[in-house]
């Protein structure tokens, strides 16, 4: 096996026992990046020199016997997470030349753990999209079939893990942006509970929904990255004060005594029959492993899409008001007045989907429409949240498909925003309710990956990891690699 194909826990053993150096591991990842990037375009920036310097530091730390599980392990960070001194573009022309003067809290935490950063992951511009085709620079392609999308918006981070350019990555998830690409690329992805991970230094999209989370090659690695990034942060007052457990303790190979609910509304009209078959087979496997499985109903599921596409654009329209061409970023100055300069800056700095959402959100918040759209959506949001809370009084976790289809073709939905939005129909409700969800590989349809989504109650990540781990150990889908 090549070094870059290792999981974090495998690499850690080899590093800690000095069989492999962090520099060798970084070189293997960087060589892989050189060979597959021309085909996949997962990375906006490759940080070769920085990675080798961080690897040398990691080797010194390991020599002193101070290796943590992530020390010396190559990683990719999504390009909306601030990295001091390394461009953080949000895959937007607006921030193409933005070099943050500070690190995000998650970046600080990973650096303290000994991360070796090999690059920044491409994404849909400002995390708005479901295919990574909305990147202002280039689309990222799915390593299982390069005529198809990898999902989005964390497509670059996800592909970097699926294609072994890195051992793990960080993504962000506002409506499915970690989980949908994880499902599309045969990778493990977790959206933690709202507030579980600090968002200081994450470029804001929709503040009541955004959350940072890991993309990894197996569930054990997901637990290891969660251990490193979770916790409250004085610089993010929306981060939760709850204690962080050792998530690796949750990894048990059986599910005896667990009750799992299967909400019928997630098997939506228009779902690909083969995808449904894979998910039903996965659920049967969970039963075999000892779980008690029962069909349930979450009747407000069908309203989640409308709720999401009112709330997220509304918050985005406010968050993106900061891009005025004055303090940082793209700026048009060849204009008559200050207002004109601002309008031109935003006209030429933002791409089509970002503009669409700013328009949608501005409309929903504008005088006369606030009650009908934004407030109404927030009330239905309460009903969706309560419905989940009720389900979790009876069930330990809820299991669903991640997406109604396998990865779609590049270009297929790019001119039809509603069709694109519908590809997130199974992942949006989770962000609306603020609960955590884990996606694990669950088989293939015609050589294309299918992901199983496991949701839990607020701060119930351990149960999700347990279900995901038991399922993963009972098959081996996550070990399959794409031929690139």
């Amino acid at each position, binding site marked *: 096996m090549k070094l870059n194909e290792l999981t974090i826990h495998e690499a850690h053993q080899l590093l800690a026992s000095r069989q492999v150096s962090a520099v060798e591991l970084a070189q293997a990842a960087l060589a892989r990046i050189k060979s597959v990037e021309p085909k996949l375009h997962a990375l906006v920036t490759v940080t070769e020199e920085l990675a080798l310097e961080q690897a040398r530091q990691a080797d010194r730390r390991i020599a002193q016997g101070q290796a943590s599980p992530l020390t010396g392990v190559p990683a990719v960070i999504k390009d909306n997470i601030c990295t001091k001194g390394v461009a953080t573009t949000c895959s937007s022309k607006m921030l193409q*030349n933005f*070099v943050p*003067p*500070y690190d995000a809290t998650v970046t600080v935490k990973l650096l303290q753990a000994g991360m070796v950063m090999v690059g920044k992951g491409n994404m849909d511009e400002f995390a708005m999209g479901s295919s990574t085709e909305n990147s202002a620079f280039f689309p990222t392609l799915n390593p299982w079939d390069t005529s198809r999308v990898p999902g989005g918006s964390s497509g670059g981070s996800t592909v970097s893990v699926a294609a072994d350019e890195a051992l793990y990555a960080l993504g962000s998830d506002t409506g499915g942006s970690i989980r949908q690409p994880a499902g599309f690329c045969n990778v493990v992805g977790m959206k933690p*509970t*709202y*507030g579980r991970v600090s968002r200081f230094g994450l470029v804001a999209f929709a503040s*009541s929904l955004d959350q940072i989370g890991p993309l990894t090659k197996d569930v054990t690695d997901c637990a290891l990255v969660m251990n490193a990034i979770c916790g409250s942060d*004085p610089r993010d*007052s*929306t981060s*939760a*004060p709850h204690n962080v457990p050792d998530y690796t303790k949750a990894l048990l190979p059986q599910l005896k005594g667990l009750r799992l609910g299967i909400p019928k509304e997630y098997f939506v009209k228009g779902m690909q029959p083969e995808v449904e078959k894979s998910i039903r087979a996965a659920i049967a496997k969970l039963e075999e492993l000892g779980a008690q499985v029962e069909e349930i109903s979450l009747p*407000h599921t*069908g*309203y989640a*899409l*409308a709720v999401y*596409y009112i709330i997220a654009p509304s918050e985005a*329209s406010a968050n993106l*008001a900061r891009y*005025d*061409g*004055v*303090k*940082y*970023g*793209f*700026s048009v*100055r060849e204009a008559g007045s*200050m207002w*004109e*300069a*601002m*309008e031109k800056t*935003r*006209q030429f700095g*933002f791409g089509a989907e970002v*503009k*669409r959402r*700013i*328009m*949608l959100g*501005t*409309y929903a918040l*504008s005088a006369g429409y606030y009650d009908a759209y934004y*407030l*109404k*959506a*927030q*009330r*239905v*949001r*309460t*009903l969706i*949240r309560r419905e989940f809370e009720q389900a979790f009084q009876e069930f330990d976790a809820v299991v669903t498909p991640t997406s109604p289809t396998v990865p779609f073709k590049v270009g297929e939905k790019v001119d039809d*925003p*509603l069709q694109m939005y519908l590809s997130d129909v199974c992942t949006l409700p989770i962000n609306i309710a*603020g609960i955590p969800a884990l996606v694990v590989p669950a088989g293939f349809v015609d050589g294309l990956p299918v992901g199983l989504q496991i949701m839990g109650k*607020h701060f119930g990540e351990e149960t999700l990891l347990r279900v995901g781990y038991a399922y993963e150990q009972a098959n081996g889908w996550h070990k399959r690699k794409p031929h690139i």
Partner: protein
Amino acid sequence: MRLSAEEVRHIALLARLGLSEEDVEKFQEQLSNILENFEILKQVDTTDVPPTAQSLELNNILRDDQVAPSCQPEEVLANAPQQEGGHFKVKAVLE
């Protein structure tokens, strides 16, 4: 619910977003379609249902107001499109 071109231009003005005539036409069509889809929410009875602004229901989290190191002015100004004398430079606000 069809948006008029005038409404689209008005929203763009509120958002300080410059639009080409082509954009106005495209958004008129696309935003109208999306808003039509939102009509589905009218079916939901939300009488006496309070709005959720944030899913965790955390109370205000306070901390002591203590002096701590922050970014240096030159670091912050390094990304400025135009600067002068240690300040961000803007076009005239009052004319």
